């Protein structure tokens, strides 16, 4: 009970800061859409190639946006050394993890919905299995958010945070990226039935990373 109360406190704080600085809405989203357009640009649009690679591009874009969101979530703690203040409150590391992760996941999910609409329109893909998409996206999002938060705190406090984060995060997320792409391929132009194993894999990942994060975050958070 206490864990949830504390986690929601942290999530509320992060979301309030985001709401005030309008970064998720005002900047990360346009960033995502611009990257989507750039890809389309770089990939020679008239070859019909776009619809085929749309799922992959969608998730690579989400991943890049997630890097920004995670970086921002910990940059907020860096300024005026707020991180030390948060540690001094004696909040449980697991609560901080769940709170930060929930805030990032919420931002990403919001982004995915709008980006998804943009991709469907821009790349002209068909949606065959909405249910698959709706089952896959939250799992992938949770996987990305939890790993991102875990690695965010690993890199936080190091002077080179901004650049170290992608380096650490991208390889670990490769399986999530792959699973999400395959699931979306099934849900968009392909056969939804092919996608279900991938959705299962994604949920396994999400559960595993989240549980691991809850256990491990405290250790990372406490020590410097």
């Amino acid at each position, binding site marked *: 009970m206490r864990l949830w109360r504390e986690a929601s406190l942290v999530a509320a704080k992060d979301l309030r800061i985001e709401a005030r600085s309008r970064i998720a809405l005002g900047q990360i989203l346009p960033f995502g859409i611009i990257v989507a357009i750039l890809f389309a640009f770089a990939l020679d649009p008239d070859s019909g190639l776009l619809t085929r690679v749309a799922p992959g591009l969608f998730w690579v874009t989400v991943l890049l946006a997630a890097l920004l969101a995670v970086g921002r979530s910990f940059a907020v703690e860096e300024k005026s050394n707020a991180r030390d203040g948060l540690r001094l409150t004696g909040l449980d590391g697991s609560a901080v993890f769940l709170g930060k992760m929930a805030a990032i996941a919420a931002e990403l999910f919001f982004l995915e919905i709008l980006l998804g609409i943009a991709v469907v329109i821009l790349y002209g893909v068909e949606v065959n299995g909405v249910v698959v998409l709706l089952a896959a996206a939250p799992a992938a999002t949770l996987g990305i958010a939890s*790993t991102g938060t*875990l690695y965010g705190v690993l890199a936080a406090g190091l002077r080179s945070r901004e650049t170290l984060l992608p380096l650490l995060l991208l390889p670990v997320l490769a399986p999530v990226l792959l699973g999400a792409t395959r699931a979306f391929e099934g849900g968009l132009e392909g056969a939804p039935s092919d996608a279900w194993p991938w959705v299962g894999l994604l949920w396994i990942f999400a559960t595993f990373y989240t549980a691991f994060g809850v256990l491990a975050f405290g250790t990372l958070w406490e*020590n410097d």
Partner: protein
Amino acid sequence: MNPRDQLLDPRLRRVIGVGAVIGVVALCLFGLWGAPPDDRQGEAMRLLYLHVPSAWLAYFAFLVTAIASALFLWPRTRSIVWDRVAGASAELGVIFTGLTLVVGSLWGRPIWGVWWAWDARLVTTAVLFFLYLGYLALRRIPGDAISTGKRNAIAALIAFVDVPIVHFSVEWWRTLHQKATVFNPELSARIEGVQALTLWIAVLAFTLVYVYLLDRRYRLAVIDDVLAEQALEQAIKIRTGDNPGVGR
């Protein structure tokens, strides 16, 4: 707990060292002359005797890293020994992964006609390589022994997730790379005769080399720690000695 400064008993280590040399010589003899060339792949197939054991030893090294990391995280068994073992084993694992990649790539050229393909096995192996490079980079960031040890251990446990993915990639995806011959889901090896014998000699030789190098790398870590401790004593002397300047 008094952390051990030798991983293996020196006599045992010497035996293993000699065994490793014999193993490598035997592998050369069998691999180059003893085993017959493959009916389809010809001489190129001999690369198998490097490729497969190095891949397996990479798995094994990362497994050791993961187990040592878990032992470090578990408060009851926490000891600097496990952190050192984890680091040493991960370094060897990266080397073996690199060897797998290079040899596989050399092998791919005559057999598939390309150095590299975007095959799930190949890509997951490359990801594995970078994952543990990242882990090694993380290990280099300084801090106190316990905190850095925990941080390293957590990163090692996350990274290990990729190992089963590499192994099962040939089952989960349609790959150019061939499916498992030995540790397949049916657990019945599809390799026999002198070829199988040579493979097992190779695995044995690689394992001995691994254990020997692990011990040596561990020793190096111990020496590093001793040197750091000495440097610290020196630094404390300098700091508390009466020296001019602003508090330094």
